[in-house]
């Protein structure tokens, strides 16, 4: 069963395993062996990691070096090495660019809307599903709600188009009954809601997995004891279930906060034409449209660097916050 696969060997077993490996000498404590012997013993292990490390060096670390373009007037014809230096000019231009501030405002606004409207849904759904006693119904609901997670954004947005777009089924119905039409897909004023509802449709179901697992990990004896003490189902939910979910909820909030500047890149790329750039430009797409699409690479790289730095600060800050709440967050203290 999946549940048993997901379990890790419990702490005692793991300790035993570790001690055993140390004793019988397969991987002894490092200080005991010279690096020469360790190299001979472990070189195939190191060799195995090489392909991944090389790919990461080329496609993740080399671009880090490429960030110097943000401080240049990068010219693709002469390359990074010979482009002239711009100092902080790109950033100066960026901070005077109303389009950039618009993109930042959109990013923060959409992030906030998603936090408020999206975040609680998986928790509520998981709580609801957890009370469904019929195993088959439960499994069926789970398989259905997980499914959209595996759809691409192109597919998801196409489906939304067919449902609530101008030629979609909703407007088809409205037209036939002469009520008038409302095209959600091209209305910049409701764009935040559209984006969020798409995200909910695609990902909220998938989001319940973590919460369901957390719910399954709560000790049922607690429920029984409190029931014996006279707590009804709502009080049990308040005093046992929700505290049991606290760790996971904090972790998910930390992740959300750390990713606050990432609000769904592909969604905006696809729908920008339909709603216009003033509603659909976010920080990620800003780099694309004002960097790559216009060959203004340094400008886009500056916007990207701005986003990366703020994001890193957000991740670290969010973890501090989690630690302050006494939770682990993304990494331990």
């Amino acid at each position, binding site marked *: 069963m*999946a*549940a048993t*696969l997901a379990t*890790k060997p419990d702490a005692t077993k793991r300790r035993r*395993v570790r001690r*055993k490996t*140390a004793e019988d000498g397969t991987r002894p404590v490092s200080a005991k062996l010279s690096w020469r012997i360790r190299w001979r013993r*472990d070189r195939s*292990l*190191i060799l195995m*990691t090489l392909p*991944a490390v090389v790919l990461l060096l080329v*496609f993740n670390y*080399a*671009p*880090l070096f*490429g*960030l110097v*373009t943000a401080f240049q007037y990068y010219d693709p014809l002469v390359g*990074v090495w010979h482009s002239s230096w711009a100092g902080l000019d790109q950033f100066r231009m960026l901070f005077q660019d109303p389009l950039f501030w618009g993109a930042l405002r959109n990013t923060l606004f959409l992030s906030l809307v998603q936090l408020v409207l999206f975040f609680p849904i998986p928790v509520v759904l998981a709580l*609801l599903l957890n009370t*469904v*006693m019929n195993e088959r119904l*439960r499994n069926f*609901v789970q*398989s*259905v709600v997980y*499914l*959209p997670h595996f*759809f*691409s954004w*192109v*597919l998801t947005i*196409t*489906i939304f188009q*067919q449902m609530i777009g101008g030629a979609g089924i909703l407007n088809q119905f409205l037209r036939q009954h002469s009520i008038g039409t409302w095209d959600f897909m091209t209305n910049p004023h409701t764009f935040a809601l559209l984006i969020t509802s798409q995200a909910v449709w695609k990902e909220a179901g998938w989001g319940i*997995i*973590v919460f369901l*697992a957390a719910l*399954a990990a709560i000790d*049922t004896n607690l429920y*029984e004891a409190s*029931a*014996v003490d006279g707590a*009804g*189902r709502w009080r049990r939910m308040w005093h046992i279930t929700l505290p049991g979910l606290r760790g996971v909820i904090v*972790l998910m909030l930390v992740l959300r906060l*750390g990713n606050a500047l990432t609000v769904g*890149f592909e969604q905006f*790329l*696809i729908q920008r034409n339909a709603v216009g750039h003033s509603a659909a430009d976010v920080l990620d797409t800003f*780099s694309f449209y004002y*960097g*790559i699409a216009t060959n203004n*690479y340094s400008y886009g790289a500056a916007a*990207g660097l701005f*986003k990366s730095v703020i994001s890193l600060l957000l991740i670290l800050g969010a973890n501090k916050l989690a630690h302050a709440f006494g939770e*682990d967050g*993304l990494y*331990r203290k």
Partner: protein
Amino acid sequence: MSMATTLRLRRNPASKAPARAPWEESPTAVGQAGKGVVLFVVIAAVLVPLWVVVLTSLSTTGAIGRAGGLVIWPDGLTLDAYRQMLTNSQVTRALVVSLLVTVIGTLVSMVVSVLCAYGLSRSRSMGHRIILLVLILTMFVSGGLIPTYLVVTGLGGYGQYWALILPSAVSVFNILVLRSFYASTSAELIDAAKMDGAGDWRTLWSVVLPTSKAVTAVITLFYAVGYWNSFFNVMLYMPVDSAKWPLQYVLLEYVNQGMNMPGSVNNGYGTGHAQTAPLSLQMAVVVLTLVPILMVYPFMQKHFRTGVLTGAVKG
């Protein structure tokens, strides 16, 4: 700094039996009804759109005309749209491209990830901390879109298929998931293999992989879905040459953005009276992108928890 890769969401053995405990109140009628309504709405929200799309792709022009667009109730069924789609060279070529990119990409990703995960999974092996750090750092800092684009195009990736695969071939998250599984493969088993003279390669192939089939399957699925669904790197690296487009990009251009599909109007099939409305053809393309996912989904579904929970949460 150790990643909190362990949420320790172990299923409590006592909570395994879903039967109602004697101390629990019996459910109220209102509660049951409310629950039923919510679940029904949730399920309908996912399934109704899929139903409409599939049905429309199977509907005759007449049915689509009578419905005024998308079809909700079966009215007249035909496979014309699919016939037309499979004679459309743009779509068939895109299908082949998508399949190849997905299969080759998944293969590359899996080989690289499995090797790396095993290489890092033996505790106290030489250098594994440093390599792990190299991996994990990429989850916190990234060069971002433009520097990556410059590196890939600088290596000559523009218009090349490898640009759709290699830059995203390694998912550190997936490696960490695999690694935590391999690390928990019983040390006794591995020692036994070592005693029998198996090296690390042999151990990985004959001991570790066979004992971790479920997680391998899930990670394969995650990679494959990623490749199948990706369209942004097409937009970046081969936006112009429509002969090279994979299916998602064809879907984007011809269905989502409403460009005219070459061959969809005048392919000599429905001269005189149109046999199939373009709408059904469009929906057939939508269905085509769905089919592979629906095909593997039932087999994978029960393992999802494994992949999602082992590495805690994607960060």
